């Protein structure tokens, strides 16, 4: 019997959609596989910067304090350079206060925007959403892939920093480093959530990225202004960077991290609802 004849002999059956969990697993697995090089490219690039800062610490640890001692007190506090007496405080000032959180937030936002808005722009969603993929599951997968990939990138960053610190005798505290990276991860998740909410009503990947990263930069500026100007300190409540604070130098605030995560999840949930209700163009 030929294949065609066999098919003709088979009565037409109603195909059932698979359970959403199975679809979610398939989407996350695919998303992770598509970005499998990111922990190396992003992780090694950013990790190398952190490792460089740690590597030069032994040669500057006795002079860095003097270099900034004449800076205005408010400025030193605003930029976290008041007490550069430990490698953690130095790494905090150089990397964890701005560069690392913003770079990782950008990566997290791009992960979400790629799976949703960029896929829409390139008409990939026309094909994907022809399969029995509930839109909420797709959004959950995008957010989940972002969370896992950010963790993977940060793991590489942390490992590089800690290993190089050990090699040069800078002795970065593993606990402090892990706490700092946890805070960066929480902050990135918040912006990934914002990007997900953005993809709920924006059809262009560049707009989603601009919205989420614009908010990140605005929050950083608000936090900075709040630190510099006493009268504007109340504004800091609106900035995620207030809750992020200085995790490497002062220790991670787990409650604040949980808060950042909760807001990120809430934004992602809003994004899922919006994405389901809108047209895919």
């Amino acid at each position, binding site marked *: 019997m030929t294949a065609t004849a066999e098919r003709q002999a088979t009565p037409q059956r109603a195909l059932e*959609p698979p359970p959403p969990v199975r679809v979610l697993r398939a989407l996350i697995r695919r998303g992770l596989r598509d970005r499998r090089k990111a922990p190396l490219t992003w992780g090694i690039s950013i990790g190398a910067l952190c490792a460089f800062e740690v590597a030069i610490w032994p040669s500057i640890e006795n002079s860095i304090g003097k270099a900034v001692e004449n800076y205005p007190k408010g400025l030193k506090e605003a930029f976290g350079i008041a007490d550069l007496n430990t490698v953690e405080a130095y790494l905090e000032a150089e990397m964890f206060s701005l560069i690392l959180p913003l770079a990782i937030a950008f990566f997290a936002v791009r992960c979400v925007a790629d799976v949703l808005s960029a896929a829409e722009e390139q008409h990939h969603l026309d094909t994907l*959403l022809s*399969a*029995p993929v509930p839109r909420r599951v797709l959004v959950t997968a995008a957010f989940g892939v972002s969370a896992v990939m950010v963790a993977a990138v940060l793991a590489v960053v942390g490992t590089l920093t800690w290993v190089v610190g050990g090699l040069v005798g800078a002795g970065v505290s593993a606990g402090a480093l892990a706490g700092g990276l946890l805070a960066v991860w929480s902050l990135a998740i918040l912006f990934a959530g914002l990007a997900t909410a953005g993809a709920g009503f924006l059809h262009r990947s560049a707009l989603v990225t601009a919205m989420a990263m614009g908010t990140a930069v605005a929050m950083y500026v608000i936090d900075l202004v709040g630190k510099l100007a006493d009268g504007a300190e109340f504004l800091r409540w609106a900035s995620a960077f207030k809750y992020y604070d200085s995790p490497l130098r002062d220790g991670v605030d787990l409650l604040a991290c949980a808060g950042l995560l909760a807001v990120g999840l809430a934004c992602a949930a809003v994004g899922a609802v919006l994405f389901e209700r809108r047209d*895919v163009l």
Partner: protein
Amino acid sequence: MLAVIETDELTKRYGSARGIEDVSLAVEPGEVFGFLGPNGAGKTTTIRTLLDLLHPTSGSARLFGLDSRRDSTAIRARLGNLPGDFAYDPRLTGRELLEFFGELRGTTDLGRAPELARRFEANLDRPLGKLSRGNRQKVGLIQAIFHDPELLILDEPTSGLDPLMQEEFLEVVAEERERGCTVFLSSHDLDEVERVCDRVGIIRNGRLIAVERMSDLTGRAFRHVALEFADRVDPAEFASITGVTEIDRVGNRITFRAQGELDAVVKTAARHKLVDIELTHPSLEEIFLTFYGHHDDGDR
């Protein structure tokens, strides 16, 4: 019997711009339904609304008796779709794409993919980004069919395929009908639709202007005839033939439009020494102009 696709005054507007307006149609189980219209007429908008990619402004659509919005996931489990501009992650090979879509459909079985790949001569081991448009389209076709869906929605499926593959595709569609599959085939190519479709819906300016049996449409279709004679022939000989209109003569060449059987035309031409004969099918636009009024320049 329950219609596989049923739309009731389905309307989709993009702000103030027109998409589709009051489209009502029913596609019966096991039929191949051609959805004909010029580019921008609203074919893709209709399909995207059926698939719940676009939400209707008003009206409704039911597939397998299920609501296109509320039951979208259950509907999509039962159909296969080839989008008009098939595209997916260019890094994936065809095989990886099919395995992924198999997973999304809850199976690890690639079903008919190997057989279809052989028939379409599709290379499943090259990344999609390195395939030509036609070869990518083949992967898209396999992706739409490999799981033996109950309904196939195909938007301009042969665009980019070479003539041999177009033939193979039409054979596959015919086989799908034999299997009991319902096919909704959007096209602007009348020849393609004519060969496989049982009925045809014609959409223009976002409105469904006719639904006809294919045989009725082709029965009314006409051809452009050009006859080249060795000597000058009086065109009046052809003017008296039923169905012949728009006669013109330039030198020894007579051209006209013929509707219906060509027997009388051939017999009349055979009275003279005939050098060449050309038969041309009308374009879709001409058919619209002839049967459904004037072409609208604002068509999209």
